């Protein structure tokens, strides 16, 4: 073997096709619903048909007589045993945290809340039997509108009232910034409620053997789930094993401790038999936590030349009926991001959390940051219009210049690196910005019924969640570190154990690439294990674009420890001083003599046999590392969207979409591009298609995929994507994270494009989702009021 072979082609940056695909493409997957155990029973839930009601009685006796039924329970049958579902982010000291039993016992507070469970031998029998459960309700008034909920005399969701918390944050002299400001623009935006809709519905299997329980769940967070079951439900943590097998998407929706998980554990223990629960899609739309749902009042003060002076944000955030895992904290993830990439003198933020009788909200792809980015990027366009300035020019005037990094923003974050100029220049080039502006002008002048709009989003986000001390200061319940172990097997193969729990992100591939480069081991010789607390004992799991920026760095750290251990063994075998051993190009060699030396894989066997081993050194290269980030990471980019808006029908067509993202160094460009594509699609879906709609009685009207419009291939355009690369300076791989970027960036790009198309008609907003009907109505309203100077469709 020559010394150069292993180092010839670095793995980092290589567009490897994925290891995961072999099983996913051939149907050899292990979804939770596939799991069958001897004697397995099926659970089905009786759910509240009322948004708000007192439960006067629950009678499960008739259900017990139904064919195949083994047992049936009401919430009361569990008493104190069922405890309360935890909220891990009590954002203020005086936050109202109502109890949240997995099954309601005295009052239901949203349609879909579980009130009883039937357990039968097969899923059809369980579904049949729930109709035989007799529940009597005394209806109470629903609370559906956040603003009305805060008014005096509103019906109460909980005894303590509908205000959950108020969280203020002020930096700089906000009064001075607005006082005498030559330009002040104020808008109110609605972040509609969304349903995450991971393609795999949730599923749970619980099985007890003596006093040990194994819980399989379609979850993003097996480790947090294990901790929660131990900390809040009285099961000794060492007796809990949680397995997240193949998980079919999450997007935050499976970052949760759910009623169904807890009840599966409790029911299986009660019956002494394993139980399974798999939700239907319509059950999932009702009861998987929802996302967004905020009113955003945003005010910006600027000088006439466009320089930003101050920003004021006042949010109402719908918590829904209860606080789930991080329900109250989601708006705070956005609180620091409203100033975005812009310099200003002062910033004021306030969020009021409000209870309503709807499904609780919680993390959904981007969690707080898409909302923040939408509002700031929308109002930058409004300000540009007010100033008569090109919206890109306004942004450029205010953004942090590349030579100004590291930069401490008005929201106190330290952005380590970025280059907004480069990403924007590349995006403009790919988009043909100037040509499109010229075409837009022509269409406006010609009164073309189909108007062209250009939407801009120069976004940043914070990910790599999170430095433990920082999130601790925000009253977040757990740390933000991640753990990795590298096991060097006797034959020189490598097992990687990661605390990041993958569900589509490609960890098995990307982690193999990191280790291959770090240790000089062939990519094919590496296997990545995850998602089982018995295999991967420690982890903080996968959310907030944290896997690579935290978990990947933990892995790199574990590799460094392997190399340190191997150096000692190599020194002994080569009869050299440890201080003289270097590791380059995949070989441990004596300094100045890279031709001679040993690979890690050769050292592995010597370590395994331990026949000829240095004194006082343990015969193992295996290494574990836990990494707590020193800072968040700040990917950024410029997304440009061109829409054609038919002013006669209101139909919006995305003509072109260009995304130039800067996510720092890239491990696998194929995976990065895929994340960007999917993210953009979800952001466009918010802009154009999706909304969870409740009627006046609090019934969810969008329970199916026929009503809740997850876009298909025919509903989405081609995306042009590219990257600039400004490495992060706060971690050794220079990586920034990419999981949420597309979603954060794309929603304002699309809505800005729609408004830009219609602005000559006097339109300055269209509420999301911008359906043809809403666009058409906005046009009619503008025409009726005689607004607008010129423009299309006359």
């Amino acid at each position: 073997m020559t010394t150069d072979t292993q180092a010839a082609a670095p793995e980092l940056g290589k567009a490897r096709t994925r290891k995961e695909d072999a099983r996913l493409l051939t149907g050899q997957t292990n979804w939770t619903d596939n799991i069958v155990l001897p004697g397995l029973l099926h659970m089905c839930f009786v759910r509240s048909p009322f948004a708000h009601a007192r439960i006067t009685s629950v009678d499960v006796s008739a259900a017990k007589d139904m064919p195949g039924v083994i047992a049936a329970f009401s919430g009361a049958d569990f008493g104190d045993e069922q405890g309360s579902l935890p909220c891990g982010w009590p954002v203020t000291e005086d936050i109202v945290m109502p109890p949240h039993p997995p099954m309601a016992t005295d009052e239901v507070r949203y349609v879909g809340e579980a009130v009883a469970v039937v357990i039968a031998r097969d899923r059809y029998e369980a579904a049949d039997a729930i109709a035989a459960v007799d529940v009597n309700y005394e209806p109470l008034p629903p609370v559906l509108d956040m603003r009305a909920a805060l008014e005096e005399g509103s019906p109460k969701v909980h005894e303590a009232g509908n205000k959950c918390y108020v969280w203020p944050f002020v930096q700089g002299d906000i009064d001075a910034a607005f006082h005498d400001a030559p330009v002040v623009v104020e808008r109110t935006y609605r972040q509609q409620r969304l349903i995450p809709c991971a393609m795999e519905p949730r599923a749970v299997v619980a099985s007890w053997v003596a006093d040990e329980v194994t819980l399989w769940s379609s979850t993003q967070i097996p480790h947090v789930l294990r901790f929660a079951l131990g900390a809040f439900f009285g099961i000794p943590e060492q007796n809990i094993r949680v397995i997240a097998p193949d998980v079919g998407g999450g997007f935050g929706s499976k970052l949760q401790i759910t009623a169904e998980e807890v009840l599966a554990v409790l029911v299986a223990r009660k019956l002494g038999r394993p139980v399974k629960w798999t939700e239907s899609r319509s059950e999932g739309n009702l009861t998987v936590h929802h996302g967004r749902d905020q009113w955003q009042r945003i005010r910006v003060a600027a000088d006439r030349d466009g320089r930003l002076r101050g920003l004021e944000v006042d949010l109402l955030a719908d918590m829904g009926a209860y606080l789930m895992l991080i329900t109250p904290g989601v708006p705070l993830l956005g609180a620091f991001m409203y100033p975005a990439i812009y310099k200003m003198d002062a910033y004021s933020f306030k969020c009021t959390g409000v209870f309503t009788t709807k499904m609780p909200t919680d993390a959904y792809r981007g969690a707080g940051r898409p909302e923040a980015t939408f509002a700031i990027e929308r109002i930058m366009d409004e300000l540009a219009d007010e100033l008569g300035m090109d919206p890109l020019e306004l942004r450029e005037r205010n953004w942090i210049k590349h030579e100004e990094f590291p930069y401490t923003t008005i929201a106190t974050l330290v952005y380590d690196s970025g280059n907004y100029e480069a990403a924007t220049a590349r995006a403009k080039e790919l988009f043909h910005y100037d040509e499109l502006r010229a075409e837009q002008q022509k269409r406006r002048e010609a009164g073309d019924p189909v108007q062209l709009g250009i939407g801009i989003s120069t976004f940043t986000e914070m990910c790599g969640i999170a430095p433990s001390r920082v999130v601790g200061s925000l009253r977040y319940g757990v740390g933000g570190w991640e753990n990795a172990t590298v096991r060097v097997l006797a034959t020189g193969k490598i097992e990687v154990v990661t605390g990041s729990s993958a569900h589509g992100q490609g960890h098995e591939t990307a982690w193999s690439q990191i280790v291959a480069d770090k240790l000089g081991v062939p990519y094919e010789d590496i296997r990545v294990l995850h998602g089982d607390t018995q295999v991967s004992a420690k982890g903080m799991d996968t959310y907030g674009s944290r896997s690579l920026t935290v978990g990947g760095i933990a892995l790199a750290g574990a590799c460094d420890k392997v190399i340190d251990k191997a150096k000692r063994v190599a020194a002994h075998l080569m009869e050299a001083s440890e201080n003289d051993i270097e590791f380059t190009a995949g070989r441990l060699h004596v300094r100045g003599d890279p031709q001679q030396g040993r690979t890690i894989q050769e050292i592995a066997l010597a370590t395994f046999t331990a026949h000829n081993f240095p004194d006082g050194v343990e015969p193992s290269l295996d290494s574990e590392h836990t990494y707590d980030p020193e800072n968040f990471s700040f990917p950024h980019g410029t997304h440009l969207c061109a829409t054609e808006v038919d002013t006669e029908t209101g139909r919006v067509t995305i003509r072109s979409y260009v995304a130039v993202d800067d996510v720092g160094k890239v491990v696998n460009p194929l995976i990065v591009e895929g994340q960007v594509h999917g993210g953009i699609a979800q952001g466009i879906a918010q802009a154009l298609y999706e909304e969870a709609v409740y009627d006046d009685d609090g019934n969810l009207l969008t329970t199916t995929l026929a009503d809740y419009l997850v876009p298909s291939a025919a509903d989405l355009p081609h995306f042009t994507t590219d990257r600039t690369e400004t490495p992060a300076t706060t971690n050794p791989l220079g990586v920034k994270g990419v999981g949420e970027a597309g979603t954060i960036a794309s929603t304002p790009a699309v809505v800005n494009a729609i408004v830009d198309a219609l602005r000559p008609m006097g339109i300055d907003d269209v509420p999301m989702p911008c359906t043809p009907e809403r666009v058409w109505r906005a046009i009619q309203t503008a025409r009726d009021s005689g607004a607008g100077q010129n423009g299309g469709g006359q």
Partner: protein
Amino acid sequence: MASITVTVDGVKYSDEVEPRLLLVHYLRDRLGKTGTPVGCDTSNCGACTVHMNGVSVKSCAVLAVQADGAEITTIQGLANGEWHPLQRAFNTEHALQCGYCTPGMIMAAADLLRTNPHPSEEEIRDGLEGNLCRCTGYENIVRAVRRASEAGVTP
């Protein structure tokens, strides 16, 4: 109960089934063909798409009794010794992330290419309208189907 005989991925099965049993549950729960997943309950998502007598169907919208005498091909029976060109193309183009929609997407794409061996981008997008993916934004799925069509897929 009704008696049915169904050939699934080349193996003939005879079973007694409830008339209401969905084909997808017959495949998954009775035959252990868990490669075909369920993504919704209104036939919108297409995750459960299989071929029945060579034509794609959503197996949540077919009763097992309707499949009596039929030949069913699932994702687990698509590869013939080596991966089907669509499976290869999906891998090459990174046309899957979580992989939950993938079996249905591939089976639907195979049927699309059977009826239209060289579809345009628009025809691919329209042809796969009945299959939802939440991860990829479809960009790479479209590329993969085009790649497979260029490689020449024989039904």
